[in-house]
């Protein structure tokens, strides 16, 4: 029962931070709010028992991506707000309300014991090497492309 209240608190943190991402005035604050979203989702994974995913989320997203984003964005001086159509945001609220309304008919039952990602990762990683190599090649190609573009058009890294 206490876990449910903890989940409510974390869900409130995640939703508030994700709203703050596009309400903040400065870009660096938006990036920090996104880091809080990553951290809150790691807490959600920890609560439902998937410790491996929580650790991956913490190390990869919070530790890696958010640091890169903050370092990249922190050099910016001025930042104008560029809101175009705030009315369109109402449409996504309607989408959320519609899906939640459709979920009313589904009984809120709890399923079995649950799977742990640690055991599933051992069997899946041993059989799906090809897919992982494709993803690694994708990452590598994107990194090389980014470095080439920066090197071609700026004098930063030369």
């Amino acid at each position: 029962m206490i876990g449910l209240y903890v989940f409510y608190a974390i869900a409130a943190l995640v939703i508030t931070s994700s709203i703050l991402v596009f309400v903040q005035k400065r870009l660096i604050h938006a990036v920090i709010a996104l880091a809080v979203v990553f951290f809150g989702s790691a807490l959600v994974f920890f609560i439902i028992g998937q410790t491996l995913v929580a650790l991956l989320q913490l190390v990869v997203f919070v530790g890696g991506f958010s640091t890169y984003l903050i370092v990249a964005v922190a050099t910016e001086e001025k930042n104008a707000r560029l809101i175009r159509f705030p009315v369109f945001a109402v449409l996504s609220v309607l989408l959320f309300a519609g899906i939640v309304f459709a979920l009313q008919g589904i009984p809120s039952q709890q399923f079995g014991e649950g799977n742990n990602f640690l055991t599933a990762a051992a069997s899946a990683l041993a059989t799906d090497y090809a897919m992982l190599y494709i993803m690694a090649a994708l990452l590598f190609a994107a990194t090389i492309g980014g470095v080439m573009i920066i090197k071609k058009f700026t004098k930063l890294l030369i």
Partner: protein
Amino acid sequence: MIPLLYLFVLSIALLAIGLAAIAAERHLVVIMLAVEIIFVASTIALISFFSYNAHANPDAVTMLFAIFAVAAVEIITLITFYVYMKYHDISFDVSKLSKFKW
């Protein structure tokens, strides 16, 4: 144990917030950050459906790493665009991206 429905509603809420940010925002970086929020929503949905299923497929691990890889590529692309557009004084307004030529 937390019901599956609550996790799913959290995921849908994050999806709706990300879509709202994409619809209402004009800044390129904020739009990419909103896509990251949608990636977080999809990860939460995947992990919650995986962990609440008694006979789940272990291939969900591959799907999770695919989501991580696409999110990583998106952040790399975002930082590249950011550095390029900032040092060439190109506006971050996505409605003016036609000036973003090679």
